């Protein structure tokens, strides 16, 4: 959707930048160690009037129940700290969010909180996603997926579904600790 800034509203890129920072600074309700900017879900912040702003938000998973709470938090912060009277949060689906949208800082924070960050696919070109049989013996060690507790690359998948839609449950075969893995969605 294209929303032209009304002619009576002078462009104010500094203000828009400030609003973008505010919206991006909202913590994720389910992964509070991450901001929405680090998660990569704030797609755009655009003033639509002198004290009106529209924010484009994209969900990680279609059914992610945190989206509503994110939208409320964005509205609150842009009203209270951004001085906006009218805040509209619009959900956008295309282009679909991928785990490559999580920033390096976001990955670092996930690992620090005991959640193995998703492996990136973008820098090394397309990576075929293999979802074939896993029952024939242990999988080869995945060197870029490490136990967030002890750092071992010897981990195994317990279930591709875990405490939230975006995580898988794994176990470290070195220290025996289970851990969450922010699973790849590319």
């Amino acid at each position, binding site marked *: 959707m294209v929303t032209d800034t009304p002619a009576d509203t002078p462009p104010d890129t500094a203000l828009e930048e400030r609003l973008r920072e505010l919206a991006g600074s909202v913590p994720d309700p389910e992964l509070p160690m991450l901001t929405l900017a680090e998660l990569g879900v704030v797609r755009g912040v655009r003033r639509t009037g002198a004290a009106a702003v529209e924010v484009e938000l994209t969900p990680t998973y279609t059914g992610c129940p945190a989206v509503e709470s994110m939208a409320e938090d964005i509205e609150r912060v842009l009203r209270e700290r951004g001085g906006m009277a009218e805040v509209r949060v619009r959900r956008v689906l295309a282009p679909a*969010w991928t785990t490559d949208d999580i920033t390096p800082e976001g990955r670092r924070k996930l690992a620090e909180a005991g959640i193995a960050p998703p492996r990136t696919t973008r820098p090394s070109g397309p990576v075929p996603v293999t979802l074939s049989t896993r029952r024939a013996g242990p999988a080869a060690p995945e060197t870029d997926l490490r136990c967030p507790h002890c750092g071992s690359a010897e981990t195994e998948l317990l279930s591709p579904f875990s405490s939230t839609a975006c995580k898988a449950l794994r176990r470290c075969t070195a220290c025996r600790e289970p851990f969450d893995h922010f699973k790849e969605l590319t």
Partner: protein
Amino acid sequence: MSAAPDPATADPAAADPATAAGALALGDDALVLSHRLAEWTGHAPVLEEEVALANIALDLLGQARTLLSLVGDEDELAFLREERAFRNVQLVEQPNGDFAQTIARQLYFSVYQELLYGQLAAGGEAAPLAPLAAKAVKEVAYHRDHAEQWTLRLGDGTETSHARMRAGLDALWRYTGELFRPVEGLAVDWAGLEAAWLETVGGVLERATLTLPEGPRATGWSAGGGREGVHTEPFGRMLAEMQHLHRSHPGASW
């Protein structure tokens, strides 16, 4: 359930009638299967499966909300329609049965949904359902993998698990022909979809030491009619439970 537009689903683009018909069919598939899977909560064989089935149900619910919002008010559509107004295929409304039968339903449906969404996503972002399809197809890949892994474990497991998987696949076979009847508003190569579905499902079953069931799917005596609002007897009871709270407390919120 409130007057303000819900930011989780609010979309400025109202669908044209043909797109709305397609969105309603796919949205009802997702909604009804989501509810069936949620019935496992508290009953799944192990905790990891409880979490997995609830997660799959949640993905489907998100798809349903997006699709139904293209048609009208999502709550009204979900909770205030009568049975004959639902356009889901009969496969998704079938009771859970035992765990193997639920896995059989998941295998049949997730392979179908992945192929269908794949085709819709290929229509490009200008196609009204393409953004949702492009996003959801990635989630459904995980659902299909889940069903596939369990089909392999159960089929190539013990004598009992093999027999139960076989029984689940057989019981639902007659509902699979309906999946490939053309739906208004969806630009899909249905014959190609069916061929790909048979190949994929057949391949999984072969690896699981099983075979495609025999018996009618689309000709002779077979089930179907869900897309025209004709549903099987268990669906009414499912809807009664699903809609009861909303109908008892209209407009309630928390």
